[in-house]
């Protein structure tokens, strides 16, 4: 009796639910076949955190932003060794069709495109630009770039003209304004939907509409048919978020993904054997260095730092750890950056020279020091162990202390670590930006406390020098002094490895490592 009662209840609820679901079967009509047009699937690692241009600061979020938004100006593209790479020195019109600079280099006047429209149908006008810049100014993450651009005011002169005044001449201004952070947002949409709308939705004028974004699984984009520069050639782009690197490689290998990023260096050789795939491995601006705290003994002595630079197995690091998907670093500035020079780089693997320098510094019997290793990157660990073994040969004992990534970032900011490995990619491909953060005396990321009055003076001089050639000359002098001073051991510059299907065309490498979907075709 009891059992029959239960059965009746269960049956009734099943019937109720079935009735509720009737006619709403999600796959009755749709799954007959793929929609018309060209579609691609990209395998990414992380799911991203926000779609708000001013708050985005991870690779996936930046990619979402660049698909949905346009900026005032953008970077040019050049051919190098038959491949397309961004030319960050050349700035091209985007939403601004032209711009003028005043003689005192402090006022920029941008004229907007006549035909540019947001995806909502609203025209891209001067008010939208003013609103968008204001949005960056008030943001959490992007506000420091606003400060760095030294924007004093931004006003709409008329519907299509924007005037931006700087507090002082700034050669980085145009470079910064071309970044995804300064995307132009449709203020009407935000006013309508509320301030939080931008976190999970877009309100741009860009080539793709975001159909779906779920950081746990995928992001789906469809081409904006009314894009003012003409609709994109790929009609649907799906980004799949796949944490496990070996799975990204397998998906690409099997043809289930048309493109995969963040491919482990050890898989590159195997993937290259697959005739259906192209593997692009471009020298990126991501540098890896071992930094010393120059305020702490014995690293306050340049001779000690130089000695260690002579004890590094440079070839092993590039070849054995990175499987040649990296290149030896020879300046504090990445070799792709305009104004780079390797002058002063005399270091090579030479233990005798290292011992001699230690002796000159008064450390003939060696010393021991604490080295902090942040987690999250296998190659850092391999590098640290190799370096530890080499240093032992010159009597230097390196105590490796492991730390989780979040803790490491926090510890770094205390300026108290004795020695550590760190990576860096400058958002703006310019030695002024780069050195200003990392090795300028007051640089906010100068965690090794490097101080050199000469370097500081050169950097300050360059900062106000309007002529690029002269500016680069000053940066070159600064680089040479730094390299000789050796506050860092230069390890390597990573390659950006992207695997893709042979028939996928139009991939352009950008130093910020963000892929722009608009140029892709199939």
């Amino acid at each position, binding site marked *: 009796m009891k059992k029959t009662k239960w059965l009746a209840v269960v049956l009734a609820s*099943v019937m109720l*639910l*079935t009735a*509720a*679901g*009737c006619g*709403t*079967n*999600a*796959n*009755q009509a*749709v*799954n007959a076949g*793929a929609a018309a047009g060209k579609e691609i*699937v990209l395998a990414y690692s992380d*799911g991203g*955190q*926000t779609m708000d241009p001013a*708050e985005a*600061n991870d690779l996936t979020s930046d990619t979402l932003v660049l698909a949905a938004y346009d900026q005032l100006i953008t970077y040019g593209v050049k051919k190098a060794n038959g491949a397309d790479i961004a030319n960050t020195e050349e700035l091209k019109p985007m939403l601004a069709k032209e711009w003028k600079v005043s003689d005192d280099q402090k006022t920029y006047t941008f004229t907007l495109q006549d035909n540019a429209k947001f995806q909502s149908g609203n025209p891209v006008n001067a008010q939208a630009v003013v609103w968008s810049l204001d949005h960056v100014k008030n943001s*959490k*993450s992007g*506000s*420091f770039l606003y*400060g760095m651009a030294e924007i004093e005011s931004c006003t709409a002169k008329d519907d299509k003209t924007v005037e931006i005044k700087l507090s002082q001449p700034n050669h980085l201004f145009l470079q910064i304004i071309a970044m995804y952070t300064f995307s132009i947002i449709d203020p009407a949409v935000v006013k309508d939907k509320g301030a*939080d709308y931008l*976190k*999970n939705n877009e309100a741009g004028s860009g080539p793709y509409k975001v159909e779906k974004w*779920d*950081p*746990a*699984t*995928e992001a789906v984009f469809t081409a904006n048919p009314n894009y003012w520069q003409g609709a994109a050639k790929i009609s649907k782009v*799906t980004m*799949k*978020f*796949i*944490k*496990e690197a*070996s*799975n990204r490689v*397998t*998906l690409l*290998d*099997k043809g*289930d993904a048309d493109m995969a990023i963040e491919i482990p260096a050890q898989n590159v050789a195997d993937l290259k054997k697959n005739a259906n795939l192209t593997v692009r491995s471009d020298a990126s601006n991501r540098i890896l260095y071992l930094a010393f705290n120059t305020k702490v003994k014995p690293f306050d002595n340049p001779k000690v730092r130089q000695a260690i630079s002579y004890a590094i197995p440079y070839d092993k690091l590039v070849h054995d750890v990175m499987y040649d998907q990296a290149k030896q670093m020879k300046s504090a500035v990445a070799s792709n950056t305009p104004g780079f020079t390797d002058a002063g780089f005399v270091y090579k693997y030479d233990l005798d020279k290292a011992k001699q320098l230690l002796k000159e510094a008064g450390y003939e019997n060696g010393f021991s020091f604490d080295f902090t290793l942040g987690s999250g990157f296998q190659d850092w660990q391999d590098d640290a162990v190799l370096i530890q073994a080499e240093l032992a040969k010159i009597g230097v004992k390196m105590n490796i202390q492991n730390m*989780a*990534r*979040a*803790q490491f*970032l*926090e*510890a770094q*900011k205390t300026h108290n670590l004795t020695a550590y490995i760190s990576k*860096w990619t400058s*958002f703006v491909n310019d030695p002024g930006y780069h050195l200003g*953060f990392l090795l300028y005396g007051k640089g*906010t*990321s100068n965690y090794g406390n490097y101080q050199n009055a000469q370097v500081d003076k050169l950097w300050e001089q360059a900062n106000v020098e309007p002529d690029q050639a002269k500016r680069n000359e000053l940066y070159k002098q600064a680089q040479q002094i730094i390299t000789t001073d050796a506050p860092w051991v230069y390890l390597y510059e990573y390659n950006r490895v992207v695997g893709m299907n042979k028939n996928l065309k139009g991939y352009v490498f950008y130093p910020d490592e963000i892929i722009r979907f608009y140029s892709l075709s199939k």
Partner: protein
Amino acid sequence: MIRYVLKRLLYAIPGVLGIILITFILSRVLPGDPAVMIAGEQAPPDVIENIRISMGLKDPLYLQFFHYIRQLGSGNLGTAWHTGHLVAQDFATRFPATLELTLVSMFIAVCFAIPVGVISATRKNSAVDHVSRVLSLLGAAIPIFWLGLVLIYIFYAKLGWSPAPMGRIGQDINPPTHLTGLYILDSLLTGDMVALKESISHIILPAICLSTGTIAIVARMVRSSMLEVIGLDYVRTARAKGLPERIVIYKHALVNALIPTLTILGLQFGYLIGGAVITETIFSWPGVGSYITESILATDYAPIQGFTLVSAILYMLINLSVDLIYGLIDPRIRYE
């Protein structure tokens, strides 16, 4: 019985409060600064400081705790900054994925482990027993990440029997209409055969991967408690009165041997719901496990606290249900 349930629930309250306090303090005392993660590596200190102030991270700890409790009191678990969603909203989308995976893997484990346990007990020291013992040992010893990758390599990359390890459903297939969030159940209820086939084919590998540990434990448990029971008088009596061996084993012995197994299953269930992190990561399964790992890496306090709270409550409810099921299986157990 109702009195017993109420009493148990009442006793759980101090436990839950303790968990809230400990998680809150731990997540704040351990190093790692959310403001640094939000601002990004290249942000200068003043920007980071402003974020700290705006997030209330500069307030004294007791004040932060007070705000948190007040917020919880209004039924709000907070907002996860790293997804931009309310924590409750994130759980609502992620939790069904984990629950479905756990249920299917428990189902596989039970279907496999109980017969194996029974057979190795009834044929003690036979070849079957030895093989099952070795397999159990392997099941408990094989690291899940390794097994997951091997399964993917064999069944997806080499044989092509399994779909790409990209979540719960294939490319260009719509998830079934949302009723419970469990894709298999939803597809059945809406008669969506396309989605049913897809969801089953996607869940098989991760569920097998996740079930191995449970199979190993449960099979050993069933074997040992069966061995204990088989020697008892009532089993001899059942045999003596001429019942077929099948009935003796499955109806008389097994039911009595199930109690300790049930305890283990309950614990395993609670554990899997919160701990399928590795399986979820390897199979890109969009569940709470991978969500919580991301939150920890991003030092995102709200989801970490919310998840600990929710899983503590779940664990407690599962244990309570297991205790109640004892009463159903063994009429001698009474709840006063």
